[in-house]
């Protein structure tokens, strides 16, 4: 469970994004952070991902303050896929996956390759494993980025605007593909796309101007937000 309590965040040279913001992200269900652009959802994701530290308030992960956990420990539990993915262009798809297994989890190379093969095959990506990121499609790149994060078996996987580079058709396929990952991890999806959120998540939060506008079941919050 991720418990966000009374956080405030302001960029050094910029607007106040949150003030006294609280929310609880439950375990055991995919969760969506919805909102228009500028509503603070990516900032929230970066706070949860330990990349930004709120000026006040706490974020607890399983009862512990995440900013008191070592980065190394926290990264084991929380995976993150950025909007722009940041696949490593000088490495093949397979090498993108094995890098952290070898250097973070200290697996030997053979095991790392074996495990990555397995994951890529399971996710239908084995055909592109020797390709470089510049040689694959946007949809494939999106899935490779998720696979890369998933391989480290995080308890939560944060996805930032995963549909922004995808057309409708690819988005639908990607959403179905994500649903298949339910046993692997808990997704926290940051998106402005209501349809996508409904397909992927069962609960969520709707942000407007740094404030919670609706929280709860996905269908309910979308209805509520649209009425306002």
């Amino acid at each position: 469970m991720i418990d966000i309590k009374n956080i405030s965040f302001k960029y050094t040279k910029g607007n106040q994004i949150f003030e006294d913001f609280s929310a609880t992200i439950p375990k055991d269900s995919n969760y969506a952070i919805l909102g228009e652009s500028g509503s603070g959802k990516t900032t929230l994701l970066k706070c949860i991902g330990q990349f930004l530290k709120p000026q006040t308030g706490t974020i607890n992960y399983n009862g512990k303050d995440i900013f008191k956990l070592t980065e190394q420990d926290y990264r084991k539990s929380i995976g993150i896929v950025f909007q722009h993915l940041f696949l490593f262009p000088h490495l093949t798809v397979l090498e993108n996956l094995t890098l952290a297994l070898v250097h973070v989890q200290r697996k030997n190379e053979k095991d790392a390759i074996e495990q990555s093969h397995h994951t890529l095959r399971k996710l239908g990506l084995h055909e592109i494993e020797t390709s470089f990121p510049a040689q694959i499609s946007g949809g494939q790149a999106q899935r490779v980025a998720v696979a890369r994060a998933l391989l480290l078996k995080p308890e939560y996987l944060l996805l930032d605007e995963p549909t922004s580079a995808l057309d409708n058709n690819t988005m639908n396929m990607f959403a179905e593909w994500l649903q298949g990952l339910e046993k692997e991890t808990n997704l926290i999806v940051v998106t402005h796309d209501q349809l996508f959120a409904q397909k992927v998540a069962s609960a969520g939060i709707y942000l407007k101007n740094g404030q919670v506008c609706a929280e709860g079941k996905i269908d309910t919050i979308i209805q509520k937000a649209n009425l306002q």
Partner: protein
Amino acid sequence: MKKNKMIFFKFSKITILSIILFSVFSFGFAEKQETLKIALTGKYPPFSFYNQQGKLAGFDVDIAKEIANILHKDVEIITTEWDGIVAGLLTDKYDAIIGSMAVTPKRAEQVLFSSPYYISGAQLFVNRNSSIQDIKDCNQKNIGVVLGETYEQFLRKNHSKIRIITYKSSIDIFQDMENGRLDGFVTDRLVGAWQIKKANKSFIKKGKLLFKEKIAIPVKKSDGLLLSQINKALSQISLSGKKKQLYDKWFALNIEPEAINQKMDSKVVSQKLMKGFAITLFVAFFSLLIGFICALPLGVILHRNKGPLYLLVRSVVDFIRGTPVLIQLFFVYYGAPQFGFTFSPITSAIITLSVNSMAYLSEVIRSGLLSVNFGQFLGGRALGLSKFQVFRFIIWPQAFRVTIPPLMNSVVALTKDTAIISVISVGEVIREAQSIISYTFNPMKYYLIVAIMFFVVTFPLMKIASYVENKVKEKGFMHD
């Protein structure tokens, strides 16, 4: 990842090997003890030049050997450029100059001169068909002199309407006489006559001697003892008839058969050029290697773009890039001994060019790092990699690939820059070529050969650079 490790190991092996080689070489070039070290240019026939066999010869060389013989010392002759020859004496690079140096009051302020060992004088030479009859006809005309010789000051003082053009050597003057850029030149009477005859040029003497010069041997002001020994030796050479013998040998032009022969044994030529080129490549290789190793951390610091360390590195790099490499070279070679560090010419060359390449390469590395999206850092951190791991496995490999083409350009530029080290007596290829030319009087041929030697080495480097550039673009991590 194995590949990365292997590259790393190879890299360290090369580094260690280089350091060992470097030490061995520097040791090999270190100065010996208990010898009389004499400097001359080796480019001033018939006083000093490289003969057909590629050996130093000439009147000055013989005088040096005679003096050393009388003083019971071994002689070591160091060839160096004329413009830095006094600076070298003052910084203990050698004990005395036996290089046909004229006594002037200004020079006498810096050094002690021996009694003169010959008298010469300044003479105007012109083309055979020239209308110039005397120095007085030379107003508004282009007259060549060798840089640093006394003739330049004399002309400026006494014939201020002459357009004086300075040259590195008389070979260059001959070339420009033939190209029509010069109307005449002023040089030593003996040298001029000897060179013109040997080079088979149609230049002739015009007018009387402009002035007479006493030619003597300078030593450091603190070397009074050596000076008195040299004076004693000179009078002994004179009294024993040895001096007349040498005078006849070198200035009775028809006595020396080899002087008329302009060809140098091609084996000697290729040996000299190959040896010179080996030194050029040696200096370039180690300067680049050391420069690159030092540039790595500096590039990273420059890329941070903040903090006191950044400001320090930024200023040093800017200073080095903003000052001529020639002056840096003089600082290391002539300046460092004043602070107690005396380096051999090769070591000075490597130090200077290493520092220089370090400055340029650190900028190349900085821009390489700058080309990597900051997101790559986030992407790596999100996977739990440490900051160092992110740099080592994600940022650096990408930056390095982007860096290769400009890096290769710097390598090419620096390899060519080694030419400059000839001024501190490093016998690199251009200096060797100049010494061949001083004998054969065929500058175009030998400079062309040297140019081709450089091209053969730099061309593949340029090809590699463009190949890598294309590969990098294909893989899509270089922004056009």
